[in-house]
């Protein structure tokens, strides 16, 4: 009987730990979101990509490497929309899709947890981080590089349909 109880207790502890491991600490996620808003991430092109998409490497910062890795998806979209992609080697850069900030609250919903932004980004290596792409920048912070594919044309069309980005043929 006692052994059975111990076994059940152990099982429940294991279950709690495993589900807890999947959920990222909320305060770190909040901090990561703040850093996105403060432009504290780096974005660079990796290659040209297939028609309508861009492949970028996003460097995010966090105390927890897994939080930084998760935030990479949001940062990739944020970068394409607001920051633009700088040119690198022989790959030309891209201007940001939105050059003047919109004050309608649209992007608060767009970038919320489970927001529409996630529809337009895929982590190319399924989220796996290459050996050289986790850098410890200080005692309490990691800089993590993740390669992501952004569905550039679909994202632009979505923003056009929401009136955030003007169509090229608008006015004609």
């Amino acid at each position, binding site marked *: 009987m006692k052994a059975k109880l111990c076994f059940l207790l152990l099982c429940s502890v294991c279950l709690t730990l495993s589900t807890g491991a999947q959920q990222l600490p909320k305060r770190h996620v909040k901090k990561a979101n703040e850093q996105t808003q403060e432009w504290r991430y780096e974005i660079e092109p990796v290659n040209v990509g297939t028609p309508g998409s861009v492949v970028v490497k996003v460097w995010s910062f966090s105390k927890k490497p897994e939080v930084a890795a998760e935030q990479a998806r949001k940062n990739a979209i944020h970068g394409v929309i607001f920051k633009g992609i700088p040119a690198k080697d022989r790959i030309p850069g*891209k201007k940001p899709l939105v050059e003047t900030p919109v004050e309608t609250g649209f992007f608060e919903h767009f970038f919320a947890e489970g927001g529409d932004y996630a529809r337009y980004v895929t982590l190319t290596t399924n989220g796996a981080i290459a050996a050289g792409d986790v850098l410890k920048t200080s005692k309490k912070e990691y800089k993590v590089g993740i390669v992501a594919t952004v569905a550039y044309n679909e994202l632009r069309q979505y923003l056009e349909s929401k009136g955030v980005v003007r169509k090229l043929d608008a006015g004609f």
Partner: protein
Amino acid sequence: MPDFNPYDHKKNTEQMKKLIVTALLILLAFAIFAQAKKPTIMVVPSDVWCNANGYMTTFDNQGVVEKLPDYNTALLEDANLNLAISKLGEMMAERGFPLKDLGASLRSLRTQAAEESVTLSSDGDALAESPLDRLKRVANADIWMQLTYTLNRVGPKRSLTFNIQGIDAYTNKQIAAASGTGPQSFSVEIPVLLEEAVLAHIDNFNNQLQAYFDDLFTNGREVSLLCRRWSGSDVNFESEFDGEELGFLIEDWVAEATVEGRFSTVEASENRMVFEQVRIPLQNANGRALDTRTWANDLRRYLQKFNIDAKLSTKGLGQAIITIGGK
């Protein structure tokens, strides 16, 4: 016409409401349809590309041998050129600008010329065509996208240098451009390099095109106007009408008919007036799309007020020529 009874206030109010709604609907329809004409865009291989790849024809221009690009042969023989043009077309159509096809336009011109050469009236008359008409019968577009690409080889490595220039056919000014050399590769085929180059550069090109369209909507389309006179004309640009010289009257008209009076008078003499950087609105007061010819036709009509006959002709899409003193 509805019956009007001055004592039936209820009925009158109803009729007034109907009239207001109808007027609003008409205004709304004007607002919806009052849109500028969408510019046509066509991709052509640049003269440099045609020359480098041997697609040029030569002709004797009064003793001087001149070279002209031979688009027909280039389109017929170069599969990579066709690929680049169709890829650019695909990307532009996705942005709401389906391209005018060069090959189809040239074919259409050939068919038209062949048809017209055998068209006769019942009296056996051929179609009237002046040498000027023949000269003007070329493929037209509002914006030309001139394409150049060069394959570079360094030992076994290959790379592609790509250049697209957007030329405004009205002013011949470069309005957008994107260029660069792609990454080096040992094994990638030329069509793949070409496709990559198009994908890499088209967004930057379109950003500049957007800036050009913004300028067009704000400041109007840039054209030029040349006014001249037939030698036998009694009237010149220094002739006075209502106490003012004709040249100044024309200048005042141009100032009125341009967006915020934007134009510059480059030349003004008794025989000739040249206006450049003339910014004409995209639509007239009726909401009709305006081009250089329609715009300059209003000047021709204005001159009729002073009993001056004038001939209106155009050169390309962006230059209007008014010749006073007859047709």
